[in-house]
């Protein structure tokens, strides 16, 4: 027999899917079995902090423009000491 109505097709598919799933559930999902470890639950997120500035305010937080300040001079840095790597080999009894 050929079903021509597409709506009827969808209904039949849904009914079949529901039947299979119900069967699986009734057969048991394994949660009660020995050794089952439940997956971690997603913790509830803390509430967002209260907003203290509007988007426009944050855009203008600095706002204005004091005159560019004079800045201190950067001093000459002391030289970096050379890195010496050496191996000291003791001769005699203590080195053996």
């Amino acid at each position, binding site marked *: 027999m050929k079903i021509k109505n597409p709506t009827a097709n969808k209904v039949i598919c849904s009914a079949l899917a529901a039947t299979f799933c119900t069967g699986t559930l009734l057969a048991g999902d394994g949660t009660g079995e020995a050794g089952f470890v439940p997956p971690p639950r997603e913790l509830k997120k803390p509430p967002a902090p209260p907003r203290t500035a509007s988007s426009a305010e944050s*855009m203008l937080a*600095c*706002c204005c*423009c*004091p*005159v560019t300040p*004079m800045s*201190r001079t950067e001093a000459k840095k002391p030289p970096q*000491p050379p890195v010496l790597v050496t191996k000291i080999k003791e001769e005699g009894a203590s080195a053996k």
Partner: protein
Amino acid sequence: MIHHLPAGRILGWGSLFFILVAADVEAAGKGGRGEPKPEAKPPESAAFTEWQVQDSSLRYKLHLIEKPTHPSAGYFVHLPDGGILPDTTVTTVVMTEDGKVIPSYLLWQNAENGFSMVFADPGSQERPVYVYVQSGRVTQLWNPESGITPSAILCTFPGRDSLNSALSLSKLGRVEPSVHLENHAGNKKAPFSIGGDMTGRPRPGSFYLLSYVEAAEAGSYWIAPHIIDGKCDVSIDGIKINPQERSKKWGGTGASVNLTKGLHRVEVLQAAGGTGPDSTNKYDGLMFLTWRPPSEKLKGGVEARIIKDWEIVRSGACKLVAVEAKNGGPVAAATANPGLCYWFGNEEPLILYDLSALTSGQPADATYTWTFPKEGETEGPDVQWICPAFREYKVRLTVKSGQDTSTCVVPFFSYSTKQTNLEKADQREAFRKALATMLKAFPRSPDPVADWSTAWWNNLMRTVEGKEEEQILTRLFTDHPDILRRKLTPGQLFTLQDLLLDLTQRQNPRETLQWIQKFLSDASTASRRSELKLREGEVQMYYLDDRRQAEKIFTEMSGLGDHAERAKIRLGDLAFLDGDLNKATAYYADVQRRARSRRNAAPLFSGDLVTNQLVQGGPPQTAQPNSPPAQGLPNIAAGAEQKRGALQEVSLSENVRSLTDDGFPLEARQTLLTWEIEFPLSKISGDYILRESAFHMKMGDWKRARPMLEAYCRQIDASSFLPGATAMLISCVQEAKETPSASLIETLEKVKDRLKYHPVAGDLDRFLSNAKNPSN
């Protein structure tokens, strides 16, 4: 309440007298659009264009370097007077090179800062324009009906903090001498704002901002000024707005103004009270302007937004390139531009100023003289001068040509925002160069050096390097010796003395001996006298080749005293130079034996700069027999003395090498002295000869490096260091442009035999070939 600003009028000035000036001609002409833009290449033009306005005796030549954002905004320029204007009123005619008259209007004028004006856009930027100054004409002030919309011109009146003072600026025309101008609407984050006095002058101050904004659409605009500090009035098209609180939201206090589409004049009067500079964290600017266009929806619960940069009209910028007199005579005009800033801790900030006379258009024989009140005179079109910060200066420039003279005064407030870093050799050199110029110009009485604060001396200590300071040090020790003794610590004084001796002995060792005698008569401690005597012997030995006199000095010193060990090393050096290797070794070994007994007793280079020690007032730490234990050496177990010594020697060698290569001559010298007193035998058996010679060669002291290198090459048959010493010896002879002596050639011939399979043999071949046949 609404009142009308008296913005427009044409006035005649019958009796205005103005002298001159322009501290920052170029800066005033630049558009203040956040970061400075690269300057456009000035257009080329004919060397001399025909005089176009016959009743004018003076003209300014301008290059148009930045176009206005809107054609009506024209060009803004601030021009110096220079004491050269023929009349007491400023009347100008602006013309293009092809004779087209450009509408122009005066804005402000004063006796100190010259005059500012705006003129219509001539169209092409390629050719210069000329501003002719006329006599006996009616001055034409700018007014809103002129058709030109100058923007955004910030007029600042330092020292006043009332809106009335700001209002007086809005009337244009003649203003007080301290008033100055910038084309500056605000900064990047607040494009329409007043932050404070752009020249760095401290509070209080009054401001008038003349600007235009572009309304993109017609309708009701919400204008919301944010007043951060002081008092502020804002006017739109001459009508003062009366801000009211409409809501508590950001930008909620303002006024609605109906604007047509197009440009509208916005004038701000601002007063800033208080004291001190605006440029600190204490203040966060004075005001900024926000608005909400009629059909704009704003998010975030705000009533207004900042006025965008592109909504603000900007006049174009010019660069003054010449001031010319019709009769071809000299005209004095100059700029003063702040440069590097030397400012450490709580010291007084010192700013390096570049003063430049406008030389274009001046007679070929023109001479330029700068007069610094109380600080003397100096010559030349460009001069660098160091000025303590936050002070008002007036420098006079005199230009002479034949019998004609022109004079102007350049006023400026010393202030600089230029980042300075003493890591950069050119920035250290800049301080030294300017200081040399100043010391040359200073009068003997009253002596300006007597008033130098600690900052001057400390910056001298920070920037000296033993290379180019001869002029500075000679001046200081010749003209200001008493001040040096009074102001400097012994360590600082001795370091400067030693540097002067280092510098003079390379060129004129006889003069060095005179300096030594002078310093000896001033030396207050036995230790210092010994140092100077030792130096005298070294000059005799290394530079004057008077070894007998040197031996006499060292022998006297070797008996007893602070520098007896060093004198013995020098006796060893003399023996080495004379070819007596055994005697030299005996001297070196004797000193080293005693040094071994106090191994690690001498301080090494501690990691801190010698200049830092000098600034803190202490003497540079050099090795002495009874010095405290050294720091920073590897902790080797007791009993491993020999290895410890070897490690220390390697450490000293590496320290000298890196300090010399990295540009720390004072520290390298100090380490060499320590090395020499601890391990004098290194002169024969180690690489001391290479490091010491490299140091002297880096300082350009070929004479000092050469004798020991030659002695080494002659007497050391074979060593790992012989090829290096040979290469250095060749360099020394070549750099000193010395004719090789027969003994040198003989020595190098022998070295060549010993090193015939070494790459240096090729250099030797070439050198010897040239020495024998100079014509090649």
